[in-house]
């Protein structure tokens, strides 16, 4: 346990990712104990640093800390871990916890000025929305240098201390999107099961599968297909994906009752075409929180433009789900 005197301590660390670290990363990706993946804030020594070794700053989220130290294999340096309450650099910068105040405070409590002779800090570029470099300089004497977006580019960056435009660009690769799926899945699992079970008893397996498909399309297929779906807005991309996924269900509903009246067959098909796409679109709209490119004003416009359509489409679809069996019953 920490005592006040320990705050000056420089803890040793390595660039090795152990099986225990990997297990921790796995749990974090699945949303287990979401705010519990923390590193003790403070100063860490990587390798055998001297008074002239570089200082890297990161968040006290294990995925952030581990990405940094593993990227620095073979580098002797210091890692200054800010207390961001177990939140990654980008999100913590947005909240301000990866920020000027915490950085200046952490420099003071670790007495960094006595540990190193130089006055330069290397920060992750995505920490910049929380840190005012000129203010850090005037308050602590340390010059902030923004390194690359991705820790993996640090070895290359350290050769010249300048980042190429590629290193400065936030990307959202297939892999970046894939690793987000598990936690999205965990969040929708219970509502999806409830919806599927209710619809199964009320309307049969096709409806249950329709609900599950609409939700899974939003949280699994959508992140994967994001750049290849047409249109710019995430909501319309979601509508399109949801509509495509609803087609087989509509066809099955229409063709599954060859002896029924045509209004009954068309109504059954319409249920899927109206109720499924807004669910996928809504989940797609919520994916804006995960992308590194949607602006606040743009997302606001999306909400105003598409939420009413989603609500109407879903409402009419669900009304049909309830009304159709009743009308069929009344008409004998």
């Amino acid at each position: 346990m920490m005592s006040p005197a320990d705050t000056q301590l420089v803890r040793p660390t390595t660039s090795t990712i152990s099986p225990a670290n990997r297990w921790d990363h796995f749990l974090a990706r699945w949303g287990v104990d979401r705010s519990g993946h923390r590193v003790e804030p403070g100063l860490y020594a990587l390798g055998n640093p001297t008074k002239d070794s570089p200082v890297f700053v990161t968040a006290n989220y294990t995925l952030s800390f581990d990405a940094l130290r593993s990227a620095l294999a073979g580098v002797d340096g210091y890692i200054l871990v800010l207390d961001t309450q177990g939140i990654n650099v980008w999100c913590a910068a947005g909240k301000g916890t990866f920020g000027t105040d915490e950085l200046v405070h952490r420099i003071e409590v670790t007495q960094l000025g006595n540990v190193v002779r130089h006055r330069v800090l290397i920060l992750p570029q995505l920490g910049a929305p929380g840190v005012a470099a000129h203010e850090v300089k005037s308050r602590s004497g340390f010059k902030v240098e923004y390194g690359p977006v991705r820790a993996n580019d640090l070895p290359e960056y350290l050769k010249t201390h300048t980042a190429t435009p590629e290193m400065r660009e936030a990307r959202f690769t297939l892999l970046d999107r894939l690793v987000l799926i598990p936690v999205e899945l965990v969040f929708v699992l219970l509502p999806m099961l409830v919806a599927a079970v209710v619809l199964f008893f009320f309307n049969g397996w096709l409806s249950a599968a329709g609900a599950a498909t609409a939700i899974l399309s939003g949280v699994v297929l959508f992140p994967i297909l994001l750049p290849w779906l047409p249109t710019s807005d995430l909501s319309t991309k979601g509508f399109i994906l949801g509509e495509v996924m609803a087609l087989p269900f509509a066809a099955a509903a229409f063709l599954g009752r060859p002896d029924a009246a045509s209004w009954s067959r068309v109504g059954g098909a319409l249920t899927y075409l109206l109720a499924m796409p807004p669910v996928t679109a809504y989940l797609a709209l919520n994916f804006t929180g995960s992308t590194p490119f949607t602006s606040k004003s743009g997302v606001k416009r999306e909400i105003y433009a598409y939420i009413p359509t989603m609500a109407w489409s879903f409402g009419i679809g669900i009304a049909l789900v309830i009304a159709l069996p009743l009308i069929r019953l009344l008409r004998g």
Partner: protein
Amino acid sequence: MFNSYLSNTLKYNPELCANCGMCTDVCPHGVFAPDGNAVRLVRPMACMECGACQLNCPTGAIAVDSGVGCATAMIFAALRGQKEATCGDVVQPSCSSGG
């Protein structure tokens, strides 16, 4: 309205620019580029309003209404009657999962 991202709140006054280049360093979408005596706004539409350039501009040449471009946070803030959406008010699945 098929593209909600064709405009944003980014404003840049080149007359105040001291040409320190900080905005070109912090922007993850290459919105600014070095050009002679003052940086130039080259990709204004790519701005995601993260606010990094404004915060790191020592001369106040950049203004942007920054905030989280996250529908979950904004919808929940609206439902609660809050004016400003912030991360962490709601647990958005992916928002603390990135590196």
